């Protein structure tokens, strides 16, 4: 219920359009009912007049029939256009809203989520929220308005029929939906969960195609996809069965009401308290009145799945951000040093801290090399620097102010960082580069690519910068992808440069050329070079060796080079030193 109210509050900008849609919808249905009732009355009255040979005013009912027919058609059209327009606007606004809510969480607070599942939230779940108004709120309110009007009208002619009508309408409009809800709620919720699961499995099925082709010849993963899909279809089948039952049930109620009118109305016609034409009028009226009831079982059937989708969206939005944003952030200075003072960090749920007592002073113009075996905490330092996570002991400051006083996004504007998990978008080379600087001129792009050593490759492509690099850059080699990522980072104009294994996958020759070009011109920028290879370290002001989350040795490059030797005991993971 809380989620439903929250949904309603999100719909507020469209509220008046939605109210209008409900009112028009009710009016259109009433026009339809009136059309049927008037027609029934009209021909009976005409026949009675014909038999009795008396004159009759056929202009008024004729005009009414025409008017109702037009009101019904136009009203139905308007109601649909207004209702859908409002709903789709609501849904369209939810996507960027949700994306913006996800942004502060990434990557730390959403790494337990599969991308296919997040896609399902952004796509399918938000799509499903359109039902909240179109299938649930609108028919419920419009149906209520129509029923009240219908019952009041019938009551003017026959109280008993009106009472029975209330009972039957409640049975069909509340009892039947409640039954359908009871029998289908689990299935409806499961459909929501399973469509997300299916998305996630399909993403794997496609992106891990190579692995599955070789290691899964018996199609185990395929069976999982089929299994989820079949289970979903089975649930939908159950829901469709219930839906069919409900449609038939509403029909049954309407017909039963017709019989009631005939059986109770006939004696009153005979005794003269009801005129002849009024009998078919009431009969057709109650019959068509149930058109307002017909969508209600579906509304109840849709409700659990819609609420489950809303929950999936809100549960993400409710997650606490891994890094708090200050209420009044300090302006971030243009320039400055990034300084770690005794910073420590433990991953949630981990037994051991990932980092302990890290001291690094990345002052303007200073270059620090960070070395150490994989898993020693180098990438955690990057994570802290980017403020994807906050240290749980010690301090990190930029230009003298604690990073926690800045807006994280503004702070990141001062940093150009190549991470280990640098994502290349399924787009062209140019589009990937422009991410760093949307205003970069073609010359600037070329210059960055030249420094990263990727320009000759780009120029050799028939489509040059407009070459499509495939899913996650699958159409280019690992080394090319790395250099493209590096070029992208070089495009970003920021005082702090952090490169996490920038030359991974490159041969020594290219590695040297790339590093020479990158290091030749860092000017006032400070640089943190994280590497497990010796190239470039000689150009650092300081080299820091990190093991098991703490700094075990630091010094000038010349004295630190011995740690790069494979036989040096310090780089053995089993060796601990203080």
């Amino acid at each position, binding site marked *: 219920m809380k989620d439903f109210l929250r949904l309603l509050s999100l719909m507020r900008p469209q509220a008046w359009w939605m109210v209008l849609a409900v009112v028009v919808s009710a009016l259109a249905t009433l026009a339809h009912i009136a059309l049927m009732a008037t027609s029934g009355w009209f021909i009976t009255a005409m026949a009675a007049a014909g038999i009795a040979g008396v004159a009759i005013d056929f202009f008024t009912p004729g005009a009414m029939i025409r008017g109702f027919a037009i009101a019904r058609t136009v009203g139905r059209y308007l109601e649909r256009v207004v209702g859908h327009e409002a709903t789709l606007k609501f849904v369209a606004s939810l996507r960027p809203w949700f994306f913006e809510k996800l942004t502060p969480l990434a990557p730390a607070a959403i790494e337990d989520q599969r*991308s296919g599942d997040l896609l399902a939230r952004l796509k399918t779940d938000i799509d499903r929220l359109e039902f909240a108004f179109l299938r649930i709120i609108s028919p419920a309110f419009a149906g209520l308005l129509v029923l009240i009007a219908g019952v009041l009208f019938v009551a003017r002619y026959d109280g008993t029929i009106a009472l029975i009508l209330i009972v039957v309408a409640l049975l069909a409009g509340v009892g039947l939906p409640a039954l359908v809800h009871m029998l289908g709620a689990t299935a409806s919720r499961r459909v929501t969960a399973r469509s997300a699961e299916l998305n996630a499995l399909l993403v*794997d099925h496609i992106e891990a195609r190579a692995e599955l*082709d070789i290691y899964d010849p018996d199609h*185990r993963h395929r069976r999982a996809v089929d299994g989820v899909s079949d289970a979903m279809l089975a649930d939908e089948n159950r829901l469709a069965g219930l839906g*069919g039952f409900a449609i038939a049930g509403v029909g049954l109620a309407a017909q039963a009401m017709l019989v009631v009118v005939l059986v109770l109305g006939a004696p009153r016609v005979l005794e003269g308290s009801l005129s002849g034409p009024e009998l078919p009028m009431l009969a057709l009226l109650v019959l068509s009145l149930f058109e307002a009831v017909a969508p209600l079982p579906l509304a109840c059937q849709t409700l659990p799945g819609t609420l489950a989708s809303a929950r999936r969206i809100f549960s993400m939005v409710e997650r606490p951000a891994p890094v708090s944003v200050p209420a009044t952030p300090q302006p971030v200075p243009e320039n400055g040093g990034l300084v770690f003072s005794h910073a420590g960090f433990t991953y949630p749920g981990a037994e051991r801290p990932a980092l302990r007592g890290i001291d690094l002073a990345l002052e303007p113009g200073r270059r620090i090399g960070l070395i150490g075996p994989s*898993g020693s905490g180098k990438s955690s330092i990057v994570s802290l620097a980017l403020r994807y996570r906050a240290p749980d002991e010690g301090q990190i400051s930029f230009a003298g102010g604690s990073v926690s006083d800045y807006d994280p996004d503004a702070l990141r504007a001062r940093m150009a960082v190549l991470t280990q*998990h*640098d994502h290349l978008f399924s787009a062209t080379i140019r589009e990937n580069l422009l991410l760093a600087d949307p205003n970069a*001129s073609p010359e600037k792009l070329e210059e960055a690519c030249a420094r990263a050593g990727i320009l000759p490759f780009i120029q050799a492509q028939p489509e040059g910068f407009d070459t499509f690099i495939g899913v996650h850059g699958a*159409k280019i080699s690992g080394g090319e992808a790395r250099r493209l990522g590096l070029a992208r980072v070089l495009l970003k104009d920021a005082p702090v440069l952090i490169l996490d294994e920038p030359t991974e996958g490159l041969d020594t020759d290219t590695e040297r050329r790339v590093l020479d070009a990158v290091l030749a011109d860092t000017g006032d920028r400070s640089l943190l070079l994280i590497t497990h290879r010796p190239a470039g370290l000689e150009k650092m002001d300081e080299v820091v060796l990190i093991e098991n989350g703490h700094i075990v040795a630091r010094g000038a490059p010349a004295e630190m080079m011995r740690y790069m030797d494979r036989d040096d005991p310090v780089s053995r993971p089993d060796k601990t030193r203080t």
Partner: protein
Amino acid sequence: MNSTRTPETNPSGNLVLIAGENVITTDRETDPRPDRKRLSAFLSRFRGTARRDLRMTMTFSVVTGLLIILQAFLVARIINGVVFQSQGIGVYATEIAGIIAIILLRFGSVWVTERFGFAAATKVMRAMRDELIDRVEKIGPVGMAETRTGETVTALAEGVRAVEPYYSRYIPASVLAVVLPVAILIVVFPLDWISGLTLLLTAPLIPVFMIIIGKGAESRNQKQWRRRTRMAGQLLDAVQGLATLKGFNAAGRMAREVAIAADGYRRDTMSVLRIAFLSSMVLEFFASVAIAMVAVFIGFRLLWGEMNFFDGLFILLLAPEFYAPLRAMGTAYHARMEAIGAAERMVVLEDAPQLAEPGGTAPLPSPEKIEIAFEDVHLTFPDGRVALNGISFTVPAGQDYALVGPSGAGKSSLLHLLLGFVKPTSGRVLVNGVPLGELDIKQWRRHIGYVPQRPRLIVGTLAANIAPGEDAPDRARLEHAVTQAHLTDVVARVPGGLDGRVGEGGAGLSGGEAHRLAVARAFYRDAPMIVLDEPTAHLDHESAAQIHDALERLLPGRTGLIAAHRLSGVVHADQILVLKGGTIAETGDHESLMAKGGLYADLVRTGAMPEWEPLS
């Protein structure tokens, strides 16, 4: 800047983050556009699987229609008797009983109609899904890299789902729209030819208008579906790259991009819906006018005494039922357009080049020893890119060969051919003398241990990732693989150890750890053929050395083909194939190639084939 390109020529079809606020979403117009006939044919192709259920749903909807006629007859009789013959309701006990019986029958019939309609659609959806997933496998890993994953996922999930109303509603409605009106005409004409004629003449207007309007809506519908799949592709990419977007302060721009895409999708959807609503308004309008005409004609003839009341009321009750199935078909026509829109992406998937080697049925002879041979193999991709140009060599059983060469020389393509991810344009790849094209490809792949250049984790536990194809991986073998691949520290770190979840939605692994996990897969499989694509590319010094030790233990006795870019992966190889521009430039072992002083010696001398040299 992007000024020289029009949206039509942008090959990638995605979001472009350009020029500050001025973000645009370009269109991937180079996609092949299947014509409407193909799309309809694609949809109808699955009809066979649902034939029985469709027949049932149509039969029962006709039964419902006939019951409606009968009920109208009985209702008209009662009202006629009560109002004009002043008879008590008791006289009509039989009719009342009949109506009650009909009501119950209608209830059952309507329910059964719905059930069979959905059952038919379920069968079609299942068949469609199976076929499309088959396609993904036939296109293969190399071919699938051409399309954004989110787009394919949308075609496979939402696209298939969108076909449901076409089968459960449109097809039954299109039959009922013929049968029931004809039945009503047969009843009405003998009673009153004027009403019959009115119905007969107005009926065709409905389908005619529907088709006229539908034509305009169809292309919009296809556009809307294209927009929908593209948006999914964009959203998945954006979510997967969210951390990178943040690092570049581009998340806000992407949010605006998402807003623009969502709004464009909304507008396209609305333009489709407007037409759908307009068409149903026209349909309702004509139906209303026609019913009103029938009512008025009847009314006046009743007034003039030219018709009896029973006939008049009976016909008036039937008139809405005459148009109901036509209107239902009009509404369901939207379902057809939806399905056609959704079918487009599926047909594109169906038309995508099936790059993967389908193989044949021949069993792999003596699988414990593998000898592979390439015979004048050429590989040209559909876009004209020449990857390999006449490759011939043989790796005798138990030997390991290394592939070296500059980036783009064709090393990965050569491995992909052997793995069956792509099939040769000409020439043959032989395994134990049998061409891959004839070989049972699944059986062949069971005998390969493969480490790709950029391994991908699969959702699930660490154990399931090391042995993805097995329901219950053997613990001892798992632990052996973990030790051999130096994955012990990862297992110790991941909560739950081997049963802990990794990959997306689980504990994160670094690039090097993911690589070692891929090596563990190869160890677990214990296969006679080992294919490695730069196995130590992403490893630090120490891990690389460990992996090399491990591989040196793994390789003896097995056949190996290893793309390598480091000397340490090459020097011990039995033979080294030096690739250049898609051909084999030289062959030999390390010593002979060094002595020869050719391309290989150059690569080594210039440091393009580095050893782990200790720093001087």
